[in-house]
């Protein structure tokens, strides 16, 4: 197994090198218009400037603030409503399909309304992020709490556990991994949709920065910022998945 | 199915069966000649010899059980005979021809695991085997119904496998193999995944069915009782590397009934088998205990 890993890594590396090479090759003078796709060198130079100066910090701060607010709101709402719904099998059957149904409507449609209600600033992004992150959290909380193995509950009851003990020692640990998955999904799609909201219309933030650079035809700077946002998404993805894996292990 | 045959007396040989034994002893349909199977290169410390110079003749119309400790190469031998694996040395011939790959015209398989295609109904599963084998389309329906009737599942033609119990699924697998109308049937622990009662009932049904079809069958099993109950001969394999240790004759006519199951003859044979196997199983346990 470990022996056959090497050629795969080489192919992956080859693909990346091929992408970089074609990027460099096709942006040579006489190739693709520099406005659409600037050459790698200026993009990496601008990316370096981005990392070493503080010019991006105000916008980064706005995006992070929106994201954190949305995730916190969605988690609080999602977990508490999910808990209430999971109390009886009947309410699960009433509300679970309802939430799943609403979740299938693209939440981005609500964005024009949120712009109307909360304005172009951070409020509309927080509202959009909260809306979209709420659903995975609530659905997974319901699924986690409602599907706890009945044998555990019977065992705890047989040993004389009261409702509070049952909740903290059986329900929460058993549902924890599923809820955690919901929180991870909420974090990730919340971040993506907030970037989307900023792109559509906003006053500040990473998405706003990229759009205004695009409108000013500052191609290499725009690509540097895109690179920055992509890296940030990967970091968020990796961190949240790592935290989920750690939490999952500690729960067992 | 149970109405087919009602002889009870022990030691009574069904005339047809008896005759076959006498006539066919010399006429081996399958010849296993010095077959060895090893995984890993020579000299590699991880090299595993699964099977060592197995030689065996199987007569036409005979039911042979292969029994041995786990990992002794029973399934490997079966796969080599069926052409699903290639031996490191030696060869297998069927009707004089060396086996080089699957020969669906001559050999049908019943696997231990459920290998029914879950997206096809029961009858479509049976028909698909014939399609692979190359049976003309017009013939398939009739033959599939016939073989499903033979295993008593005619009423479940249009069910999906997921709707059947484990025992029923194995019967469909058997019907699929019967539908191929091959001379040889290879069964790799077909009842291993089932509970004891089900496998006993299925074993009885199988005995009746096989007496009627007169196929040549090789049957791999873990169960001593199953081996004795079904087989004309039981081949006992040694612990890895698997060699054929001894072959035990079971003189009892087919179809065999439940009272054979409880007879002294069967328990004597079973004890004899157990004696043969006990040392082999201890060997495998010691081998496993060593590295730890």
């Amino acid at each position, binding site marked *: 197994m470990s022996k056959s890993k090497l050629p795969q890594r080489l192919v992956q590396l080859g693909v990346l090198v091929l992408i970089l090479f074609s990027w460099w090759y096709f942006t040579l003078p006489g190739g693709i218009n520099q406005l*659409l796709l600037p050459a790698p060198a200026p993009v990496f130079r601008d990316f370096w400037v981005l990392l070493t100066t503080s010019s991006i910090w105000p916008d980064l701060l706005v995006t992070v603030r929106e994201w954190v607010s949305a995730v916190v709101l969605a988690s609080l709402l999602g977990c508490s409503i999910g808990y209430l719904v999971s109390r009886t099998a*009947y*309410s699960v059957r009433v509300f679970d399909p309802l939430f799943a149904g609403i979740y299938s409507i693209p939440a981005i449609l609500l964005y024009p*309304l949120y712009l109307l209600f909360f304005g172009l600033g951070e409020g509309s992004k927080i509202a959009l992020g909260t809306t979209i992150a709420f659903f995975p959290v609530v659905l997974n909380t319901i699924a986690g709490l409602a599907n706890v193995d009945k044998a555990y509950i019977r065992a705890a009851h047989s040993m004389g556990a009261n409702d509070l003990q049952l909740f903290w020692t059986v329900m929460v640990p058993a549902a924890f991994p599923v809820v955690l998955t919901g929180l991870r999904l909420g974090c990730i799609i919340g971040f993506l949709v907030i970037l989307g909201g900023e792109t559509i219309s906003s006053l500040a933030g990473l998405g706003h920065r990229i759009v205004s650079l695009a409108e000013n035809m500052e191609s290499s700077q725009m690509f540097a910022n895109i690179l920055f946002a992509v890296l940030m998404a990967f970091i968020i993805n990796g961190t949240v998945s790592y935290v989920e894996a750690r939490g999952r292990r500690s729960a067992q | 199915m149970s109405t087919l045959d009602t002889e009870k007396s022990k030691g009574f040989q069904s005339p047809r069966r008896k005759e076959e034994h006498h006539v066919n002893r010399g006429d081996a349909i399958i010849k296993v000649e010095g077959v060895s199977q090893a995984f890993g290169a020579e000299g590699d410390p991880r090299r595993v010899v699964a099977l060592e110079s197995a030689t065996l003749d199987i007569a036409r119309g005979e039911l042979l059980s292969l029994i041995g400790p786990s990992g002794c190469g029973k399934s490997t031998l079966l796969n080599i005979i069926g052409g699903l694996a290639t031996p490191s040395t030696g060869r297998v011939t069927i009707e004089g021809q060396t086996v080089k790959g*699957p020969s669906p015209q001559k050999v049908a398989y019943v696997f231990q695991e459920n290998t029914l295609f879950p997206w096809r109904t029961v009858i479509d599963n049976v028909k698909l085997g014939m399609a692979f084998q190359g049976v003309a389309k017009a013939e398939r329906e009739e033959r599939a119904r016939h073989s499903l009737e033979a295993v008593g599942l005619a009423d479940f033609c249009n069910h999906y496998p997921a709707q059947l119990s484990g025992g029923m699924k194995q019967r469909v697998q058997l019907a699929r193999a019967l539908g191929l109308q091959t001379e040889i049937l290879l069964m790799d622990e077909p009842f291993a995944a089932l509970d004891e009662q089900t496998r006993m009932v299925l074993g009885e049904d199988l005995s009746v069915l096989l007496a009627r079809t007169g196929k040549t069958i090789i049957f791999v099993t873990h169960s001593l009782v199953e081996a004795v109950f079904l087989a004309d001969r039981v081949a006992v394999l040694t612990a890895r590397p698997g060699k054929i240790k001894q072959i035990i004759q079971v003189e009892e006519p087919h179809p065999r009934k439940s009272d054979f199951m409880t007879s002294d003859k069967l328990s004597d044979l079973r004890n004899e088998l157990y004696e043969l196997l006990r040392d082999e199983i201890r060997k495998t346990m010691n081998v496993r205990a060593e590295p730890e």
Partner: protein
Amino acid sequence: MTAITTTGVSVARRGPLLSPGLTRLLVIFLLFAIWQVGAGLWGDPLFLCTPVQALRALPHILSDPKVDNAIVVTIYELVTAFVVSVAFGLCIGLAVGLNGFTKQSIMPVILMMYATPQAIILPLFVLIFGIGPAAKIAFGISHGVFPVIVTTVAGVQNLRPQLLRAAHSMGASRWQVFTTVIFPHMIPSFFTGMRLAMTAVLIGVLLAELYVSTAGIGFYSRLYAESFSPPDLFALITVLAVIAVTLNELCRMAERHFSRWNIG
């Protein structure tokens, strides 16, 4: 929300008098009633309208041929992006998934691209393809193609080797193995992929539509918001939501139909 949930609980304690489906409808009705009364009493008509007003605005916006045209163009973009995503995704997924080597070497690259926040490259799509349907279709495909690839690869991958062995033992040819074993096996996950692709394409196309505010749906949503006529905006969003739900539901029905054997 809390009040509604406690109703559900108390109903359950008395023994469910109503079927869950009926209670669900009641809950929805109740929410609309609260909206209607609340918006009627306290809502600022410049920002909020009642559901009845929104319903009344429906014929008004639909009678404008330019709005109708924008909606039809959106549907066209959605369907085109979906079809192209599925076709491309299936081909790429099969090419990558049927071979162990390509799967293990190319798949991580694809997953990495899947995890990129595509929203931020939206301006780039508009720069390249202009503000017409092409940019929106391309952006929709960039969302839709990945779920199809990932589920196709997963569908090919989960095949139990015993099934292949059984087919092999009965003399199946390579082509027969593909058409009767591999392909049917991946059908359910392929349809799951199609449903996910539909969700993703909706997000992509609508995002692009809303971004380009000089034409199409984006133009009208901005127009209605800036002219402070919330009934029109609500009506437009309702139409789009109905389209989204219908397309989603079609995919879900197809998925259920083709995975019957899987549920048993």
